[in-house]
């Protein structure tokens, strides 16, 4: 692993807390999370729906719905720029230029009435002052980069003429047009067929290596995590409950929630039935005090009323867990 200090990483988040307004009260939907992603590194953010993964991504992008959601504390530094302190024009200039994002739904994330070539090159016109002709030329190169066949002929095609996998490639081309240092991928392969998933993941890994991208991968698919991530961060109810290098995590999942997630994953070997995690994530207004997983935890005790600190696992300073029962002496 690189020894570059966290402060100069393309993406670094310190003590981020994001709150949602319900009625007249602000509830913390993301609590005090910190992480950084280095160039060429992939950090996977894992957890079930409603655990704060996507909210974390939107906080980083500076795209929270203004009235109802806000970053209440913490620092988000993207390529040297503090996004939490910056004004909106600065953040707007950062988005699409130095930080890109791709979404789960490639079928609806492209504008149906504009040609592909224009959409791929539009960010270059916005951020780099390219003319329409220059943007079109660069769009062709970008489509070739993401391996869209017959790129030159497809510049004038419309999104409905592309398959789902091709559209996700186009979305990647859009996000990478200006050569950002950070890419956030929110469930990028969830909507795709399994064979296409593998192709898109391989493409992303390849581009990441070429462009030196820091990749924040949001997913609930542990299979994807195992195949592409360098480090894992498991979130539950807005807290980071476990984080560590991907090998250490899969060799020794330590938080009860991580164990439960892995037990709920289908496997080819063995014929154990899948173990679903009982219950569901409590709603934001009903979160328990202290550890938020206690309502579903098989090993809870009276200590869980206080939020445990992050402690090391097996003496490995990179592998940390947030659970009283896993604190090592």
């Amino acid at each position, binding site marked *: 692993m690189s020894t570059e200090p966290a402060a100069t990483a393309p993406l670094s988040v310190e003590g981020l807390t994001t709150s949602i307004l319900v009625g007249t009260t602000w509830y913390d939907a993301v609590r005090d999370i910190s992480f950084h992603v280095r160039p060429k590194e992939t950090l996977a953010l894992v957890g079930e729906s409603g655990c704060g993964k996507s909210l974390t991504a939107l906080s980083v992008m500076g795209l929270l719905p203004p009235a109802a959601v806000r970053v209440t504390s913490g620092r988000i530094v993207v390529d040297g720029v503090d996004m939490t302190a910056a004004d909106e024009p600065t953040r707007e200039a950062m988005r699409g230029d130095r930080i890109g994002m791709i979404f789960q739904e490639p079928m609806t994330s492209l504008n*149906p009435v504009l040609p592909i070539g224009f959409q791929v090159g539009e960010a270059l016109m916005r951020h780099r002052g390219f003319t329409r002709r220059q943007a079109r030329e660069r769009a062709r190169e970008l489509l070739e980069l993401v391996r869209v066949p017959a790129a030159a002929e497809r510049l004038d095609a419309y999104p409905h003429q592309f398959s789902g996998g091709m559209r996700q490639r186009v979305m990647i081309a859009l996000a990478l047009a200006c050569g950002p240092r950070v890419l956030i991928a929110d469930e990028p392969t969830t909507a795709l067929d399994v064979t296409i998933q593998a192709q898109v993941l391989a493409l992303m890994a390849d581009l990441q290596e070429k462009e030196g991208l820091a990749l924040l991968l949001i997913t609930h698919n542990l299979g994807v995590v195992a195949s592409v991530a360098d480090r894992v961060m498991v979130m539950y109810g807005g807290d980071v409950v476990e984080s560590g290098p991907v090998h250490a995590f899969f060799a020794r999942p330590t938080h009860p929630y991580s164990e439960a997630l892995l037990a709920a994953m289908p496997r080819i070997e063995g014929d154990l039935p899948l173990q679903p995690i009982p219950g569901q994530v409590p709603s934001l207004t009903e979160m328990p005090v202290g550890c938020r997983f206690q309502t579903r935890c098989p090993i809870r005790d009276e200590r869980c009323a206080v939020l445990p600190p992050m402690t090391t696992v097996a003496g490995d300073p990179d592998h940390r867990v947030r659970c009283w029962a896993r604190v090592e002496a």
Partner: protein
Amino acid sequence: MSTSAAEFRPSVLKRALRSGGLLFGIALVVVMIVAAIAAPWLAPHDPNAQDVLLVLTPPDAAHLFGTDAFGRDVLSRVLWGARISLYVGFVSTLAGVIIGTAIGVVAGYYGGIVDRLVVAATDVLLSFPQLIMGLLLVAVLGASLGNLIIAIAVTAIPAFVRLARGSTLTMRERDFVDACRTLGFSDLRIMFLHVLPNILDEIVVMASLWLASAIRTEATLAFIGLSVPPPTATWGGIVREGFDNLLDAPWMSIFPSLAILAVMIGLNLVGDGLRDATDPKGAP
């Protein structure tokens, strides 16, 4: 997820051309527009030249539509009147569409207090019948070509605000708008470069129907004497002049009425045809 309007784009033209009504409507409207533009060359007589010897002549070879109470050639007046009636209709509808759509897209995109104020204002304006509204405005502003256009444009604005706002509200929730934000696009660029092209088909359909309505409003205002003052010919005005001698010389009112009818039918056929052609549910 393949329900976007564009999925059906390649067949829109094909379906539009298969619809006979649309083609007939376009032909009718084009003929009227050409006639209006070419009026100085097509009109057999000066529309304002009076001839006391030819007062109230029935249609004959020299005066195909007959003459009026001042001996003016009705065909020439109908042709010249088309210029005023169509010009007022087109310019006022265009102004109403542009202003109304811009306001509607902005209100629908931002929502909140701006949106609520805009909706309240359009509800108030829409509660007046179009004709009463136009009448009121012309009465206040005075009857002139410019004021007539302003009055009719103002009656068109609230309808387009409402249409554009509603369509923008649904577009705003689409994923591609979020994707635009992640690319650092400004609200202005998203609204007018990304949202507007997606709602344009509905706007165009309604504009063609409103054009008919604007021409009818102009004719009605002219009929009650609130259009361009005489002796300038307008369709509504000629109908009105013919009313004094309706039983003796019905051709004076019939021919301009037929011209109005033809434009109404043509534009409504165009509007209905476009709507059917762009409506994905109408796919055969």
